[in-house]
């Protein structure tokens, strides 16, 4: 298979480390060589959390600037901030729901309008999938399922060789029973949204 380099960015608490780990588990169970890299330590402190999943004939655990095949952004400003990882052909999948950093509240910066950020990304990137992941997570009654929505969108985009069936099975194996139904629903909403874009 071709090498696929997927970069995840988000904010501490959004669950992107779990998403990248589950994607790695799914790849392994499909017999695809995979490495997952994570930056720990900031997750509980509201900082930026970045992870990467590399699949195929590749052993490097990280993705250089301009070399991501897919960028999955859990928060629009963080998607834009990580755009340096992309080239024109990178698929960008982004949540549109803003999570302004605290610096904005104390007047140390302004949060750009989401529409303008999306327009800007679309001028630079050929294919962009944008979805309100938080709304979908709310719809299934589990605000913490944003990461499942984003995984659904990633699989739904058809950009990586992991099937929805394998991904959902991996989610099943790692989710507490109480959240399983909502997690799978969240995955489906993200999947369908990406398929329709």
């Amino acid at each position: 298979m071709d090498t696929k380099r997927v970069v995840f960015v988000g904010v501490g608490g959004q669950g992107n480390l779990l998403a990248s780990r589950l994607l790695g588990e799914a790849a392994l169970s499909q017999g695809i060589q995979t490495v997952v890299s994570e930056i720990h330590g900031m997750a509980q402190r509201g900082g930026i959390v970045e992870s990467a999943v590399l699949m195929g004939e590749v052993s490097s655990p990280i993705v250089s600037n301009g070399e991501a095949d897919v960028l999955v952004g859990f928060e629009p400003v963080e998607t834009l901030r990580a755009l340096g990882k992309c080239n024109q052909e990178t698929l960008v999948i982004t949540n549109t729901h803003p999570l302004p950093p605290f610096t904005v509240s104390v007047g140390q910066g302004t949060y750009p309008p989401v529409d303008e950020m999306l327009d800007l990304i679309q001028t630079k990137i050929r294919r962009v999938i944008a979805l309100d992941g938080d709304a979908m997570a709310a719809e299934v009654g589990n605000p913490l399922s944003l990461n499942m929505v984003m995984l659904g969108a990633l699989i739904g985009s058809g950009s990586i060789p992991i099937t929805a069936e394998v991904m959902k099975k991996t989610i099943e194996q790692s989710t507490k029973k109480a959240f399983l139904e909502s997690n799978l629903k969240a995955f489906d909403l993200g999947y369908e949204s990406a398929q329709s874009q």
Partner: protein
Amino acid sequence: MHKLLTDSPGKEMLLLGNEAIARGALEAGLSFATCYPGTPSSEIPEQFFRISQETDLYFEYSTNEKVALEVGAGAAVSGLRTMVTMKHVGLNVAADPLMTLAYSGVKAGMVIVTADDPYLFSSQNEQDNRYYARLSGLPMLEPTNTQEMKDITKMAFDLSEQLELPVLLRTTTRLNHVRGKVVLGELQPIRTKGEFRRNPFHFVAIPAVSRKLHKLLLEKYDQAARKAESWPTNQIIGNGPWGIVTNGVSFNYVSDAISDLGIQDKVTILKLGFSWPLPKGLIKQFLDQVDKVLVVEELEPINENDFRAVAEELGITKLIKGKGVGELSRLFEYDPGMVRRAIAQYFEVPYEPPKPVDLSGIPELPARPPNLCPGCPHRATYYAVKEVYGEDAIHPTDIGCYTLGVLPPISMADYLICMGSSVSSSCGFSQATDKKVVSFIGDSTFFHSGITGLVNAVHNNHKFTLVILDNGTTAMTGHQPHPGVDTTPMGVQRTQIDLEQVVRGCGVKDVHVVKPFKLKKTMEAVKAAMEYDGISVIISKELCPLFARATGQARKAKPFYVNLDKCKNHRDCINKIACPAMYLEGEQVMINQNLCIGCAVCAQICPENAILPSK
């Protein structure tokens, strides 16, 4: 059952590098493990902590790295296979025992994990601990991926036992925090007791003994060098004329680069998995078959300089370069693109790198620095100290979550070099300046290396206030216990040492124990400390809210809200304490009900009493 106790040889698992090290140790019959936690090493002892609750494995969080190494030394000379883990700067703390432990050696296998942190993701420096192998004379192993982290760890125990020397296992963040496929091997039984055979003229490092031991170390060093020649991860790969020497995670960047560039048939890689002592025979074989050499190693040009020296010794004249080729530098970490460009440039391979998107037109984005959590008691303590001392005091600080107090609006961190430096540097600041000095240290860091500084402060009559931020855990690295922690909620029984008694035992007369969420009383204590002519200690005691939640000790308080009829938008709440539960809706300060834990600090500082508990 802990997943690393899965007894299915041949099974494939996706493991974090640190989990792979722990598994490798268990496959080697690890019986004894100690550590002081530190990123990026912390997930290794985290596994041992849990596994020790299910098996006979002895594990302890030791007071600091020096203690951890000495505790481990006692076990390893008594015949128990032992692992001691720490971050790179931790080995500075443990360097004293390390240097002489290298002389007297061990009986059972002992592996010391040193986790380096290129790019300083979570550290105060990016020192290259490969120098410690050179300094101590101990063998160093450097795995390159998750599978090797398990396999090499297991082999390291055998190597250590054969040489009767501790072995240094060096990793970097990009190995510790990478998940990859690991094929499990067989678990080995854990031994609970060993036997110490007295031999004072070997184990008591007096000068007459150590003169013999130094000679012994050099003999073992030669043995180690011979083993390095045939070590399975010291490999010559390929037979082309272009030589590339590499180690650790960089091996992956090199491998990917030569396949991306399609130059497999032109390149010979020398992979150094057993990187000290140098396998000079293997290096000669490598140098003989290549025309010129590129050394791809993160941080210091250690292999680069060593290879030049070996080449000179062998009378081989070939171009050997590393730092300075392309973007290869001594700073930060490498990445695949950087290594690909450097290889293409050095060997003159035509290559068009992918074009990153043009980032012009992107507006300035708001920064998102990490922040103290909602309801973090440190925020309250900082507020109270600033209200009393104003902006003018000098604030030496220390290593922990509270170091985030460097950021506005708290801005109360002026000096930090290493664990424990808050206390000792305060002695210097208070003597050398006319400023008031209030320093901050966490409870775990205080036990790690604050006590000696405090004894010094008392003995030498220094005058400052030390605030011990006692949140009942080692929060920064993931809530490990320390000597001052009540470990019962964590499921283990360890003796809790009373911090206040320790402080008084150090000779401090002016000691205040406060609950930081009670701002008025806390400020009164700070004021009393400020007026005291001598050394004062304020112990600010409140559980880390994340730890409290994880261990079922969370406050049962309601979140607060802003009463819009009362709020006059002074914004003291946002401007002075900056809790991340607060946000602006238009111009109105609001409180996120899901994030607020009801610490009531903002409610106490609101001049209009507009912040109230939710019904």
